[in-house]
């Protein structure tokens, strides 16, 4: 019991501005709210961006590059276009083209009559030889006709009849000789044409052989190089993405840190509530101290409560301060670490992007292509060279088909000349009979000249008739050869052209994919840059962390100061009323205790008050408060 001292306290220097501390605490809550808000707002956006970039890159890699997973995702309508698939298509077409290309043996079979590769009697070469033989025989006819004329001239008048006949033989031979010079011209044209045909066919065959040897056989290597390069690119892209994911992994921690802030905030809010209660007691205390009929127990109750509560609040504020400082340091440190890691990833990505898909540069006069472009440009160069070869073959084949006109006109002229010669042969046969009659009339039937005329006319007729037959057969064979050659060449060309068109389409797809890969690599780099920029902005905004910590400390110090003053006042009051100790009203403490909502506060309060009956609750589920 206190000594009943009715006179009021003379002195009360106990002045604390708890309202100001409340206001400061409210200010601190607002500031931290803003601080965490920055992180809280940015986090989902950043997280979403990372997720999208990751998805896009994986899609790109799987969809365009990797050939492992061919089945489209469920509900996905479009056919998956794969680089490997397009390349395989091109490869298949090349193989197809190689099968259409003719080999020398096939051409020999087709153009045997032209190329002199056949032993057949109706070969072009055989025909030329026969014509030469006829020409020789014809010059013999000419000699004999001249000799016949000389023979008749020397016989004088009795030889005149035979002379006329000889003259006819001579004229026929001269005519045939002239006609043969036309035949010679046509044959020369035909020979030149045939040589051209042979040369062109040889060129076609050698070009085709080159195409097969240099390109078709190498295509597998070239394409597997391309596939390897693409897989390398794919791997690099995966690495970049993995680095990004590793760099942003502390994001999850940030989320936890933000949740911690919620508890800190609750603590501060509760502190404000407590402070306002203490402030109430504080006001009442001052009223009591200045009142005239004040019960000293009331005064003691109040000051003891104020001192006790401020003590608790100081302790709690100390914990809030360290909790907040820790949380702020964590957030700031994590963000800083994020910015640093992203900085590295960004630099890697920038370098890789310029390597993979950068603009090509002219260095020392040589075009320095990015890796993606280099991979494709060497493949395109290879393919274009091959397509050029095919074009060359096509041009030659078209020339051969068009050049058939020369053959046809030469053959027609030849046919006409042969017809004329053949008619003349019939005449010669009749003249031969007349010669025999005339010689008999002259009594010279056994003269050598008669026999010579007969035998040479026989020979030339036989040769020309058999040549007529050979010519007709040859004409048929050659025409058949040519039209078959034409047909096959045209058919092959058509198939090759179709395959080339399809290769073109596939090439376009590959080119488009190449562009898409390039664009995607650039886009990925941009995403990473944006991410870095966003996180950096957040980091910059979080730089006010020290100020917050200082403010928190300030509040703590003010509370300490308030506590010190309250202790001083309590001591003074105890002294005044000559009490050693004073038991606070437990219901008031319970009231205060009930203002605390977090486990941290309640357990601190419980141990502070030393009251075993107080229920501090459980720390579990603390984070589920919001």
């Amino acid at each position, binding site marked *: 019991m206190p000594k009943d001292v009715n006179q009021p306290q003379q002195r009360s220097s106990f002045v604390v501005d708890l309202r100001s501390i409340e206001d400061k605490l409210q200010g601190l809550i607002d500031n931290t709210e803003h601080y965490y808000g920055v992180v809280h707002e940015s986090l989902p956006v950043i997280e979403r961006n990372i997720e999208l970039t990751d998805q896009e890159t994986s899609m790109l890699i799987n969809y365009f590059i990797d050939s492992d997973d061919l089945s489209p995702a469920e509900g996905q309508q479009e056919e998956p276009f794969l680089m490997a698939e397009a390349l395989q298509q091109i490869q298949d077409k090349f193989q197809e083209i190689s099968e259409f290309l003719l080999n020398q043996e096939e051409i020999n079979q087709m153009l045997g009559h032209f190329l002199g590769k056949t032993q057949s009697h109706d070969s072009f070469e055989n025909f030329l030889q026969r014509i030469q033989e006829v020409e*020789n025989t014809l*010059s013999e006819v000419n000699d004999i006709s*001249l000799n016949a*004329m*000389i023979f*008749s*001239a020397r016989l*004088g008048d009795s030889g*005149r009849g035979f002379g006329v006949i000889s003259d006819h033989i*001579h004229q026929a031979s001269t005519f045939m000789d002239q006609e043969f010079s036309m035949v010679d011209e046509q044959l020369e044209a035909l020979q030149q044409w045939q040589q051209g045909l042979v040369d062109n066919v040889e060129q076609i065959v050698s070009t085709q052989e080159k195409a097969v040897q240099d390109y078709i056989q190498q295509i597998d290597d070239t394409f597997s190089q391309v596939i390897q390069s693409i897989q390398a690119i794919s791997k690099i892209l995966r690495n970049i993405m993995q680095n990004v994911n590793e760099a942003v992994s502390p994001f999850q921690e940030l989320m936890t840190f933000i949740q911690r802030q919620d508890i800190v905030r609750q603590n501060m809010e509760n502190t404000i509530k407590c402070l306002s209660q203490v402030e109430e007691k504080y006001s009442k205390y001052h009223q009591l101290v200045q009142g005239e009929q004040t019960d000293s127990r009331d005064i003691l109750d109040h000051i003891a409560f104020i001192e006790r509560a401020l003590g608790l609040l100081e302790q709690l504020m100390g914990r809030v301060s360290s909790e907040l400082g820790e949380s702020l340091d964590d957030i700031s440190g994590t963000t800083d670490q994020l910015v640093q890691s992203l900085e590295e990833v960004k630099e890697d990505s920038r370098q890789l992007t310029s390597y993979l898909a950068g603009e090509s540069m002219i260095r020392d006069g040589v075009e320095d292509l990015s890796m993606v472009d280099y991979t494709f440009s060497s493949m395109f160069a290879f393919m274009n060279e091959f397509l050029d070869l095919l074009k060359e073959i096509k041009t030659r084949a078209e020339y051969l088909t068009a050049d058939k006109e020369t053959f046809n006109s030469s053959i027609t002229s030849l046919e006409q000349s042969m017809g004329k010669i053949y008619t003349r042969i019939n005449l010669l046969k009749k003249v031969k009979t007349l010669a025999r009659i005339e010689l008999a009339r002259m009594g010279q039937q056994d003269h050598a000249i008669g026999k010579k005329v007969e035998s040479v006319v026989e020979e030339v007729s036989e040769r020309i008739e058999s040549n007529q037959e050979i010519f007709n057969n040859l004409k048929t064979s050659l025409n058949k050869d040519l039209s078959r050659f034409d047909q096959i060449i045209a058919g092959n060309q058509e198939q090759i052209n179709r395959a080339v068109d399809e290769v073109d389409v596939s090439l376009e797809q590959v080119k488009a994919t190449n562009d898409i890969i390039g664009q995607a690599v650039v886009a990925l780099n941009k995403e990473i840059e944006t991410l870095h920029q966003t996180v950096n902005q957040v980091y910059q905004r979080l730089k006010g962390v020290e100020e917050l910590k200082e403010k928190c400390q300030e509040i703590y110090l003010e509370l300490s100061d308030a506590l010190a003053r309250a202790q001083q006042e309590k001591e003074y009051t105890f002294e005044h009323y000559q009490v050693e100790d004073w038991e606070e009203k437990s219901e008031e403490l319970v009231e205060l205790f009930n203002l605390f909502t977090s486990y941290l506060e309640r357990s601190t309060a419980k141990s502070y008050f030393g009251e075993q009956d107080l229920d501090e609750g459980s720390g579990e589920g603390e984070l589920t408060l919001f």
Partner: protein
Amino acid sequence: MVREQQEQERGLNFQDDHLDNLSAENQYVTFRIGEEEYGIDIMLVQEIIRYSKPTRVFNANPVIKGVINFRGKVIPILDMRRKFNLPEQEYDEYTVVIVIEVNGKTMGMIVDRVSDIISFNEENIQLVDQEFADDIKTEHLKGMAKTGERIILLLDPQRVLTFEELKRLDKELPRELPESTE
């Protein structure tokens, strides 16, 4: 022109003017040596034969290419290119030997090719005045004949070989040829 005409003559259309044209009086066998076309009286010509390599004989006259067997007689063969101082040329399928008989002497002339047998009217023949004929070619000519645009140099067979040359030949040439050397 010639061809058209010949086309018309197809068939056995023997005409009288043709027979007149063939009068043996002024018929010439025409042939080529180098650039020039020559003619020789048909009555002097025995036969035209294909050129085959003659048997070589030793004699001082380079114009004599060799000898051949003609109807059982050994006759000299003259290279007319050498005779006219023309550059030598390889013999081909057109090269022939015109066998002529002059003053009972038979000989062969190698010519580039035989052209034709042509009849000339007297007015188309212009005789050469031998007093002015100092040219190496004209000294062997009897005259010149015109047919269309062609000028035919008519050879004087008497002057193909001189009297002395013929005499010497008589002594040097063998009477017979061994069978195998023909």
